[in-house]
């Protein structure tokens, strides 16, 4: 029965992917990345609940949350810096990677 939750995790992850691919505001893309991380975390926990000792998987989630927090801080810092420099946060307008 646990695969219901696994499907849910996959769905949330895919919604995150959907948003990250289709939206233009950088903050919203960051939010979608949070969704993706949450989908993955949910899969971890759902699987762990089937194991006799869920500690290891849950510890991984602790790491994932810590890393998500760092990623958000840096990402938002970058977005705010971007806003200072350019006055907008629309990701697709950034074309510095272009040749």
């Amino acid at each position, binding site marked *: 029965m646990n695969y219901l939750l696994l499907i849910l995790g996959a769905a949330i992850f895919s919604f995150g992917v959907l948003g990250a691919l289709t939206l233009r505001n950088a903050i919203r893309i960051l939010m979608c990345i949070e969704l993706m991380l949450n989908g993955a975390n949910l899969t971890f926990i759902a699987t762990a609940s089937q194991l006799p000792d869920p500690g290891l998987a849950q510890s991984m989630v602790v790491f994932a949350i810590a890393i998500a927090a760092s990623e958000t801080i840096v990402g938002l810092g970058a977005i705010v810096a971007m806003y200072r420099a350019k006055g907008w946060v629309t990701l697709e307008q950034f*074309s510095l990677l272009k040749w």
Partner: protein
Amino acid sequence: MEHTVASLAGSWTLTSILAVLTMAFPLLGFIIVGLCGKIAKEWGPKLATVTIFLSLITSIVVLGLVIANGPAPTVSFVWLQSGNLTLDFGFRVDQLCAMMLCVVTLVSFLVHLFSQDYMHGDPGIARFYAELQLFTTAMLGVVTASNLLQLFAFWELVGLCSYLLIGFWFHKRSAYQAAKKAFFVTKVGDMGLFTGIVMCFILSNPHTLSLEALPSALASLAPALLIIIPLLIFMGAMGKSAQFPLHVWLPNAMEGPTPVSALIHAATMVAAGIYLVARCMGLFTLDPSGTALKVVTYVGSFTAIFAATIATVQDDIKKVLAYSTISQLGYMVMALGFGKFGYTAALFHLMTHAMFKGLLFLGSGSVIHATHTQNMHEMGGLFKKMPITAWTFILGSLALAGLFPFAGFWSKDAILVGAEATHSTIPLILALITAFLTPYYMTRCVWLTFFGKPRKENHAHEASWRTTLPLIILAVLSVVIGFVGAPFFGELFQRFIFFHEFESEAVNWTLIFGSTGLVLAGIFLGLAIYAWGWFKKETLIRILKPLYLFFKNKWFVDEAWTFIAVKPLFYLSEFCHWFDRTVIDGAVNGVAWLSVILGNIVYWFDAGIVDGLVNLAGYLTVKVSELVKWFDENVIDGAVNGVAALTGFIGSKVRKVQTGYLPNYATIMFASIALVLILVAWFAVLN
């Protein structure tokens, strides 16, 4: 869980249900008006007034029921449970609570009505009413709370509403600074209160926070703890009820709209401290040596005289009333310190004070609304233009002054009797001096505002019935409410609210005549200086210059706070700044300086020796390369140019892949992942 539900259902009485309803109406109003925001500008104030009116009716019914049937049994249910910590959420409706319910809802209702005109046209009027509703809910929560933590939660909510309403005009610098000051200063007291609550819980046996069970649960503690715990609780009361030295926020709080000053900073919220001490009186009396109560008395009596002296020299009509409030609160606190001899008197004074101080603030609001100034020296001659306001204001002042037979007389007299009964000589003397100063500064205030020649052009006139009706109601109450506690009318109030047991007091004629004499003397002095001009004001100021400056500067309490608390912090940060600049930057600069020296040495070595060798090698290289150049230009370039042209051609096609368009990269990344997954699925799983 089952048994809590059962016990809850079993003990509900009509009284408790109505008390909860009294709280529910303004809460509902807060939710509706608060959520509707700007849409509610027109109907929000009316709705809020209606909800408060409903609460007023239910609270009067509650009072009637409690008078008829005695206190309702406390209803409570388990709020949260963790380990050996069980917290109840309950409603305790007894005489004290019923009285407070009526006072709060009555003043709140009249303020709601009054504000209809006063706040008319203000862009934030819906927010104003929503906050008033929340405040009323919270205040009713404080008075019905059955345990200390629940009381503390509502207590903080009351503080929050006070902060929001003082800073209602937050675009004014002075307003938001006053709001912050009020919040921080009361927080100092709240720290004490919270520590006291935690100590109560830890030390009580069995662990409890219930107001009813605490005194017996704490009774076996060491005497020192029995002094400390009440004093910590008293700290909270000192902050909320503006007792010296935590009174500094209340005068600044007058930056809020005047109806707010009337409701919160005169009639109800500041009385919450009195209510708290009264509720915890069982804890204060545990201490066999009576030290805690003595501290309470001395703080109160000092605050009373201290604030009264400051009130005599204020120019701002609201500041006079603010210091008078502090002084009257000091009176109540002093009375609480007399234990069972002053308990009833303090609450009696709380009730009468709520009436006449609410009246005075609303009256001053009416004056300010008409003249657009708060400085009394710019008013004058308003008696003809605003007769209703003037008459009600004068009645309120006489009640505050404590002239026979107005409300203030009876309650003040009760306090003085309490002081006499406990043989507290020094508080009694301070209280009598205050009883002389109060009529003096109120006479001054009334005369400067309403009589004499208009000192400034104004077109003051009486506002609509919504402004004057609350004034008239409160004026009538200020005159008659004292009779419920008058010894000649059966001491109804004393029979209703008492600590442990009711004791009839013998009428003390000496005190009655003495205090009446002092009141008359105070009024006489005020009239002599301001009305009849027997003494030149300037001459008096010159003669009493040191005293005048001392009072005018509010006993330098603000300066003392700056010196004790603010300055040291400031110096500490200055020192840290200096340390950073001098020591750390010095070290960094030293390292930089060393690097520069080292760099110079290396540079000399580089320029003198290494460069010589390099130049020699360079010369040789040039010669060789001249030979190579010929070969290169003629033979190799041909081949290279061909390859470059080819590469350039391919590159110009391939670089289109690098769009620099970020979503493209991401899409390709995820598409590749999906592709890999699909391939794995195809080859590894399906086959």
